[in-house]
């Protein structure tokens, strides 16, 4: 979605701690890539979209973040958003979170992916046009219809009825 939500006051419905935990998690799920020229899911524009989307499932997302903090407390004696940005530490907590709370982890990953893969820069990096399907649509090759020739030559094989 590019920068269109960058000035959105998103995140107001989550606490600062929840927002930080979510940002840390989404950056961990989809990190930036120099190789592919891609931002992380914690990029300002993308994270604004993530927060706006998460607000539509506020209760479920807050529950998931509580479960993440619970796991983080167990593993590292601290809330997830307050942990040092050590990728090994974060990845260890995240893995335990996925094992113990697969549904909640799946929800947060789904919101992350939904928003990340509609970002202008990400779509362009995937050789996509940064636009919705309608109204322009897409071109599809007809393909090689001569492939059907051997099937055309096949005798009818439906079952006869009494």
């Amino acid at each position: 979605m590019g920068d269109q939500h960058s000035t959105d006051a998103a995140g107001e419905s989550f606490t600062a701690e929840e927002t930080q935990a979510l940002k840390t998690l989404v950056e961990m799920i989809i990190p930036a890539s120099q190789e592919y020229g891609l931002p992380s899911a914690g990029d300002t524009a993308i994270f604004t979209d993530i927060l706006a989307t998460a607000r539509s499932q506020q209760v479920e997302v807050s529950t998931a973040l509580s479960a993440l903090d619970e796991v983080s407390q167990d593993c590292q004696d601290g809330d997830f958003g307050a942990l040092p940005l050590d990728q090994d530490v974060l990845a260890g907590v995240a893995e335990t979170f996925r094992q113990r709370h697969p549904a909640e982890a799946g929800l947060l990953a789904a919101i992350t992916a939904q928003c990340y893969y509609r970002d202008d820069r990400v779509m362009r990096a995937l050789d996509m046009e940064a636009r919705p399907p309608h109204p322009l649509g897409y071109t599809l090759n007809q393909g090689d219809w001569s492939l059907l020739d051997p099937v055309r030559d096949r005798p009818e094989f439906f079952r006869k009825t009494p």
Partner: protein
Amino acid sequence: MTEQPIDVLIIGAGASGAAVAWSLAETRMRIVCLEQGDMMKPADYPSTGRDWEARGQSDFAISPNQRRLAADYPIAEEDSPIKVANYNGVGGGTVLYAGHFPRFHPSDFRVNSLDGVADDWPIDCATLAPHYAENDRMMGVAGLPGDPAYPGDNVKRMPPLPLGKSGEAIARGFNKLNWHWWPSDTAIATEPYDGRDKCINLGACVSGCAQGAKASTDITYWPHAIRAGVELRTRCRVREITVDADGMATGVIYYDGDGVEQALQAHVVVLACNGVGTPRILLNSKSTAFPDGLANSSGLVGRNLMFHPYASIMGVFDEALDGYKGPGKCIRSQEFYETDAARDFVRGYTFEIHRGFGPVSTALMGLQRGRIPWGVGHHQAFRGLFNRIAGMVAICEDLPEEHNRVTLDPELTDSDGIPAPKISYTLSQNSRKMMDHAIERGSEVLRAAGARDIMTQAPISYGGWHLMGTARMGLDPARSVVNDWGRSHDVKNLFVVDGSIFVTSAGVNPTRTIQALALYIAEQMKQRLANLFD
């Protein structure tokens, strides 16, 4: 002021309700259709926005329990491994279907005679032939004549959907194995048709076609039916069908969009609410004369629920395929459609080839199946899947079993307080063996086509697209709910025209047959108007 009784009251404006309304309109009777959902607004469909894939998981989700729109009713389905998919609005399930539009085979109507299981239909394929043709004209069908899997397949259609890269790759796989495949019949216009524009490959068929190329009945039958005088009322949720002392239907009680109880009297009532909605209303229509629900002297209302158990077989290819571009469907195979005594199951299935997925769907599939990791490696793994997945689903014939059923949940209700349907369903051993077979054969095809990695799932949990059998058709009132032209055995001015009346499910998508049946029943009604209730 009490409204005067109308001639025909149709409940439900989906695939069958639209067809029966249009067909009956020529009688000039006063016809009203009550639909619990709204008119659709194609300009608001997901494909018009950048969040089109996400909306397929929210307001355009196929599960009413996930969608939870005002028009939806909840479904208690904890006791079923397959969850119901539907859409409540003008067009019904055709708003969200993929438009895969095969016909039944002659053998599908004679399952008992041929295989000694289930029951034969009281009608045959030839009876439906003119109604298939009429429905094809109203909906608009693309495809190719000459399929050797069907007898006399010589009906002209619009040109088939493109093979594209995905269809071509998988067709090569079938050819290497010398197995059947054929361009799918689809209810998708590949050239301008009846005021609709042609397909431009939006790739979002299953969340409504903003282009209007896909034949949902809100843009096919309904404009014609309304122009012919049928009245369509939206946001009207029927609670029950009322009866008089003679056991004849007198009309319905429904809730309007404000939740206010209303009554509408009618001389004829037609149910077109699908295989879950129809038994729900019948079972909720209890009276002194019908203590077990209306039209239920056989005890079979709600029983014999059939889904089509679906198996998914997807392959990962090295070369780039079509991905998100184009309708999901392109070709089909019926190599394993008919019963083969050498197998350990009866009946068979159709392979529907699936073209590919958008980026969000690819990411979600990869994340859920452990093919895309969190963190380092995400991007590389994603690129290994994006635009590189294609495959097929096997739509397996489901045989009727009385213990698979729709009842009324004792606690769960919709927003108007009407009891919600409860689904109790178990997969048969026959279905499990059929899905196993489909996974093995489908994997062979994909490997022959060059797939390097194969992902399977069976059954597809949220794949209860087809709802059939819960008010079955038959000649014996003790073993069926409606007769051979859709009239209730018990209530002579009550008709059912949706998938509930299916005797068996065949191994193909049912919409084309549902609509042909609705037209057939409408024709029977028109021919018998003088003695319709005899």
